[in-house]
C-alpha cells in the first residue's frame, strides 16, 4: 500500500510540474512570440491635451499724447493692467483672453509724428520710430481737438500695428484718471477685436474640435469660404481657351505674378509656404451651355448653373503631382467666338461687373470677354493680349477671401487705412496668425487624441518607434505652442503649432498603422486549438483530480478527528 501511495504521489508531482512548466515557460513564450509590437505613447499628456485650456495673451501699449492727460494725472497712470476674460466653449475646451495693457505718455518724437497733417503720414512716421513685435498693438490716445482724423471718425487703424484713438468729447478736462481709463477701456477692446482677435474668430477657428451650434447662414458661409490651415498651398492659374482656332491668347502671367501676387505671398510667408504655377488649357469647355439673352445680345450664365461649370474643367486641371498641399485654382476663361460676350448673372438677374465668381475652398473663375477687341471682319486667329492688371485685381481679391484675410466690417467710427502695395496690413497678418495658430492647435489635438483612441481600441495595430516618436514630437510641439500663446509670443506659437500639425498628420496617416488591422481573433484560435486543446485537457483533468483528492483527504482527516 505504501508503494501504491508512493506511485500515486509521484504521478501527482509529475502532473503538477508539467502544469507548472506550461504555465511558467509555455504561456509567456506563446505570449511573447505572438504579441504585436506597440511602442510607448505619452497617453497621459495626450489625455491632458484632450482637455484644452487655451490662453491667448495680447500686449497693448496705450500711449497718451499731449493734451489728453494732465501732468499730475500722468504720474498716477498705472504702469500695467491685466484683464482676463474667460469663455467656456464646450466641456473639453475653454478659452481665456488676457490683455496686458501698458500705459505711458508719448515721447517727443512720437509727439512730432502725431503732428503730421494726415493720419496716414502719422502712422508711417510712428512706425519708423518703433517696431512692435508680432501680435502686439500700440494705441495712441490723441486729444479731441486733434485734426488728424476727420470729424466723424474716432479711431484710425493704420497699416502696421498702430491705431489712433480720439478721446471722446465728454472727457475733455477735469475728469479723473479713473474716469478716463474707464472711458478708454471698452474702446481699446473694440480696437483689439478689430486688430488682433475676436471671440467669433477664435471659436470659428476651433471648428475642428468643437461642433458649433449652427448660427446664421452668413456666418457659416463665412467660415466655409476660407481654406483650412495647411503648412503649404499650391496656387495654380489656368488660362482656359476653348477656341484656339479663333483666339490666340497671350498672358504675361510671369510678370503679373511678380507684380501682384508675390508681394502678398511674401508677406504671408510666416503663415505657410506658397508655390505658384500656371498653365494654358485649350479646348477646355465649361460644363453648361450659356443661354443667349437677346435683350442684351449676350450670353449669360445664371448663378444657379455656376455650380455645374467647373466639373468638366476640373478633370483637366490636373492635381499637383509634386505635393499634397491644397490647391487654389484660379481660372481665366476666354469664351469662344461663337459664345461671346458671356456674362455672369447673380440672383437678382444683374450682371456681375467683375464677371467673376469664386467657390469656397476651391478657387475662382473669371470670364474674360475678348469679342470687343476685334471687328466682325477680323481674320482668325486673332492675337489677343490679356490685361493682366484687370485679371489680377479680381484674382487677388479672391485669393484674400480664400486665404481668410477678410475683415468683418469695422464698427462705426472706425477708419481703416487702405493697405499698402503688399495687399496686407501687419495687423491683418496678425489676425490671421492668431486664428491659424488656434486652428492648428485645435486640429493637431483632435488628430492626436483620435489617434490615441484608435490605437487604444484596436489592440492589433503595431505601433512602430517612428510613430511613437512622431506622436511625442507632436505632443511636445503642441505643449510649446500652447505655452507660447500664453506668453504672447505669436510667431513662435504659430511655428510650433505648424510643427505639431505636421507631426500629428504624419503619425496619423502612416501606412504602417494598417498592417495587422484585419487579423481577427477567431482565425488565430482556429490555428491554436489543434495544439492547445489536446495539451490542456489532460493537464486540467489531472489538476482537477488532484484537487478533488486533496479535498477528499482533508474531509477524511476531519472525519477521523471527529
Amino acid at each position: 500500500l505504501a508503494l501504491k501511495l508512493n506511485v500515486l504521489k509521484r504521478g501527482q508531482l509529475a502532473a503538477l510540474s508539467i502544469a507548472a512548466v506550461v504555465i511558467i515557460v509555455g504561456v509567456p513564450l506563446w505570449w511573447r512570440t505572438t504579441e504585436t509590437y506597440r511602442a510607448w505613447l505619452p497617453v497621459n499628456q495626450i489625455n491632458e491635451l484632450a482637455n484644452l485650456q487655451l490662453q491667448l495673451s495680447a500686449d497693448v501699449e496705450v500711449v497718451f499724447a499731449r493734451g489728453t492727460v494732465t501732468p499730475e494725472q500722468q504720474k498716477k497712470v498705472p504702469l500695467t493692467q491685466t484683464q482676463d476674460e474667460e469663455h467656456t466653449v464646450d466641456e473639453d475646451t475653454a478659452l481665456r483672453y488676457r490683455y496686458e495693457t501698458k500705459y505711458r505718455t508719448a515721447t517727443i518724437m512720437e509727439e512730432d509724428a502725431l503732428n503730421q497733417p494726415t493720419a496716414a503720414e502719422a502712422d508711417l512716421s510712428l512706425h519708423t520710430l518703433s517696431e512692435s513685435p508680432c501680435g502686439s498693438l500700440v494705441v495712441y490716445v490723441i486729444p479731441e481737438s486733434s485734426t488728424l482724423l476727420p470729424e466723424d471718425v474716432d479711431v484710425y487703424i493704420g497699416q502696421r500695428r498702430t491705431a489712433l484713438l480720439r478721446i471722446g468729447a465728454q472727457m475733455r478736462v477735469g475728469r479723473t484718471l479713473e474716469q478716463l481709463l474707464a472711458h478708454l477701456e471698452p474702446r481699446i477692446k473694440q480696437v483689439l477685436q478689430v486688430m488682433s482677435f475676436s471671440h467669433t474668430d477664435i471659436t470659428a477657428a476651433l471648428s475642428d474640435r468643437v461642433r458649433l451650434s449652427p448660427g446664421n447662414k452668413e456666418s457659416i458661409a463665412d467660415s466655409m469660404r476660407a481654406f483650412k490651415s495647411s503648412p503649404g498651398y499650391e496656387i495654380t492659374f489656368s488660362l482656359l481657351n476653348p477656341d484656339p482656332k479663333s483666339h490666340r491668347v497671350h498672358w504675361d502671367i510671369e510678370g503679373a505674378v511678380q507684380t501682384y501676387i508675390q508681394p502678398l505671398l511674401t508677406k504671408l510667408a510666416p503663415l505657410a509656404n506658397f508655390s505658384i504655377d500656371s498653365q494654358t488649357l485649350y479646348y477646355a469647355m465649361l460644363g453648361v451651355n450659356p443661354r443667349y439673352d437677346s435683350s442684351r445680345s449676350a450670353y449669360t450664365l445664371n448663378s444657379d448653373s455656376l455650380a455645374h461649370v467647373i466639373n468638366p474643367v476640373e478633370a483637366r486641371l490636373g492635381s499637383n503631382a509634386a505635393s499634397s498641399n491644397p490647391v487654389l485654382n484660379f481660372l481665366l476663361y476666354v469664351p469662344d467666338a461663337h459664345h461671346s460676350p458671356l456674362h455672369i448673372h447673380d440672383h437678382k438677374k444683374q450682371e456681375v461687373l467683375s464677371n467673376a465668381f469664386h467657390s469656397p475652398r476651391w478657387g475662382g473663375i473669371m470670364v474674360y470677354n475678348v469679342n470687343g477687341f476685334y471687328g466682325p471682319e477680323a481674320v482668325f486667329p486673332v492675337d489677343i493680349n490679356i490685361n493682366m492688371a484687370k485679371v489680377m485685381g479680381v484674382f487677388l481679391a479672391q485669393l484674400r477671401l480664400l486665404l481668410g484675410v477678410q475683415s468683418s466690417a469695422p464698427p462705426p467710427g472706425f477708419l481703416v487705412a487702405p493697405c499698402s502695395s503688399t495687399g496686407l496690413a501687419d495687423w491683418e497678418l496678425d489676425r490671421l496668425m492668431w486664428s491659424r495658430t488656434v486652428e492648428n492647435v485645435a486640429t493637431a489635438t483632435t488628430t492626436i487624441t483620435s489617434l490615441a483612441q484608435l490605437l487604444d481600441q484596436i489592440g492589433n495595430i503595431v505601433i512602430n518607434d517612428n510613430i511613437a516618436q512622431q506622436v511625442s514630437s507632436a505632443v511636445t510641439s503642441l505643449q510649446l505652442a500652447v505655452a507660447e500663446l500664453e506668453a504672447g509670443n505669436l510667431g513662435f506659437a504659430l511655428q510650433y503649432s505648424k510643427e505639431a500639425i505636421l507631426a500629428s498628420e504624419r503619425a496619423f496617416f502612416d501606412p504602417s498603422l494598417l498592417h495587422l488591422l484585419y487579423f481577427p481573433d477567431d482565425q488565430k484560435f482556429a490555428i491554436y486549438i489543434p495544439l492547445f486543446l489536446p495539451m490542456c485537457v489532460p493537464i486540467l483533468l489531472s489538476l482537477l483530480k488532484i484537487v478533488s483528492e486533496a479535498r477528499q483527504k482533508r474531509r477524511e482527516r476531519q472525519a477521523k478527528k471527529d
Partner: protein
Amino acid sequence: MAAHRCSNCAALLILCSLSVFIVVDSQETTLNGGHHATTVHNPQTTTGTAEQTAEPAVEERRWEATAVEEATPDDDDDAAASDKQDTSAPETVDPSSVPQPKDDFQEELVIRPLHSGDIYASFQFRTVWETDFMRGNKVSHYRLFPKSLGQVISKFSVRELHISFTQGYWRTMQWGQPFQPSPPGAELWVWFQDSVTDVDGTWKELTNVLSGIFCASLNFIDSTNTVQPSASFKPLGIGNETDHRFLRYATLPREIVCTENLTPWKKLLPCGSKAGLAVLLKSEKLFHSSFHSQAVHIRPVCQDWQCKTTSWELRQTLNVVFDLHNSAQGKREWSLFKMFSRTLTEACPLASSSKIYIDITDNPQGEQFEVSPATPLLSQAVVLGDRRTFSVYDLTQQITFGTVRSLNLLIRWKSSEGDMLRPLLHAERYVAGYGLQTGEIHTLMYNNHPYRSFPVLLLDSVPWYLRLYIHTLTVTSKGKDNKPSYIHYQPSKDRLRPHLLEMLVQLPPNSVTEVTVQFERALLKWTEYTPDPNHGFYVGSSVISSLVPSIVAMDTNSTRERPLFSSFFPCKEESSYFVRVYTEPLLVNLPTPDFSMPYNVICLTCTVVAVGYGSLYNLLTRSFQIEEPSPGLAKRIANIIRKMRGVPPL
C-alpha cells in the same frame, strides 16, 4: 510707401449669392510712367439689405460672385460709378507686342502597309520647349508643355524619362523594325541629374507619381525589378553624363494596357483629343488591334547645330498594328474611317506642322496598292538604315481636305505579292527544360546581314526567384564558342534585387548566336505568390541594342528639320544606325504549393505533437498496477442467472 500715390477708388459693386455680401474692391495705381501697378484694398460697408428670398439649403460647395472694382488710372473720383469699363485696353490686337512663343508643337502620323497585310500606324506628337529644368531652376508657367509632367521633371530632377505601355508583341520577322521599339507591358527608364543624392528614394517616389499620372501599376516597381544597366541605355538627349548610378531601368511585363492608360496620355496633348490627329485615337478601335504601344519620352535636345541653346522635348508616340484580315472580311481595303471610325477635318491649331506620311517605297508604280486621294507631295527620308519614299498629306493646308472638308485616306490592295527585306537583326527567347526545379533560358540573336558582322549589347534582367547558374552561361554562334568581349554581371539578392547580365557579343554575318544559361526555381514564401500563381511568373524581355550597318548614309545632323519618326534615335555616324530589339517576355512556372496546405499542416503536426505529448503525459502521471484477471464469460453469465434467482454469486 509715400512713393505710392494711392488714388482712391472708383466703384462699389454689390454682389450677393445666397445672402452673402462680399465687398472687396481693389484699386490699381500706376507709378509715373512705370508699369508697376499695385492693388489697394479698401473694405467698405455695404448699404444694401440682405435679401432672404427662397434660399436654397447651404450646399457643400457654394458659388459666390466676386465683387471687385476696377479703377482706371488717374481716377480720383470716389463715387459709385459702377459701370466703368476698362477703356485703356492693352488687349488690342497688336502683333508686334505678341511675344514669340518659346514652345512648339508638331504632330505626325506615319502609315505603313505591312507585307503581312496588316497596317502599321505610328502617331508622334512632339512638344519642344526652350526652358531650363536643370539645376533646381523653378519652372512654373506652362503653355503647351503639360504641367503635370513638368512638375515631375523639376521636382525629381529628371534629366531624361522614357516610359512605354505596350499590349501585344512586335513581330519583327513579319513586320520589320518599328519606329519606336518597346517591350510588352510597361517599361520605364530614367536618367536623373547628377545633383540627386538619394537616387533610389527619388526613383521610388517618381514611380509612384507616374503611376498616378498614367493610371498604371508602376507603383509595383521596387528594388526587386529595378536595375542599373551599365551600357545598354545611354541618354538619348544631350549631355555626356554616363555614370550609370543615375540611371534606373525597370519593366513590368505583366502590365495590361487599356483605355485607362490612353486617356491620361491623350490629356497631355495640347489639343487633347479635340482636334488634329488625336481625334483618331478612339480607344475602342485602338485596342481592337494586334499591337498597341504608347509612350512618352522626355529629354533635353539641342536647338541648333552648335547646341548653344537647349530645350526640352516631349515626344508622345503611339504605335498600332491593325489586323485587316479580321476586320475587313477578307477584302483587302483600308481607310482611315475603317481603322479609326473617324476622318480628319482639321489640324490641331496649335501645331506648327501636322502631316500624314504613307510609306509607298514598295509601291513605286502603284502596282501593289492604290492610295486615294492622291497627293502630289512626295518625301524621302532615311529611316532605320533604309531610304524610304512617302506620300505626304499636309493637314495645315486647306487643300488637303478637298471639297468635302474631310480627309479619309483609302488604300486598296491590288496584289499580295512582294517580299519584305528581312530585318538585319532580330531575336527570340524561350525557356527550356522540364520539371519544376531547374530550367534553361535560351536567347537567340539573328544577324541576317550577308557579309557584315556587328556587335550587339544584350541586357537581361531576371528576377531573383530564378537563380541563374552563371557558370553555365554559354554563347555559341555557328556551332563555335563565341566569347563576349564585355560581361557585366550583378548577382541577385533574394527579395532585394534581380540579376543583371549585360554582354557585348559580336554577331558573325548571316548567323544565329545562342546564349543559354541555366537556372533554379526558388520556392517563394506563401505571401509572395501572386493571386493566380498557376498562371506563372513573367520575366521581362531581353534588350538587344546595336549599331547596325546601314545600307545608305545616315543623317548625323540632329537639328535639321526631318520627319519626327526618323529623328528619334540620335545618329553619330553615317555608316550605321541604332536599333533596339526586345525579345518576348518569358512566362515561367514556379513550384506552387496548395494554398490550403498550411492549415492542414498545422493541424497534422499539432495532432502528432498532441498524441506524443499525451502518451508521455500518461506515462508520467498514471500509476500502473496489476489488476486481478476478470472472471470468464461463463462465470459472469452464471453469476447473472444466480442474481436473478436470488442466490449469492459464485
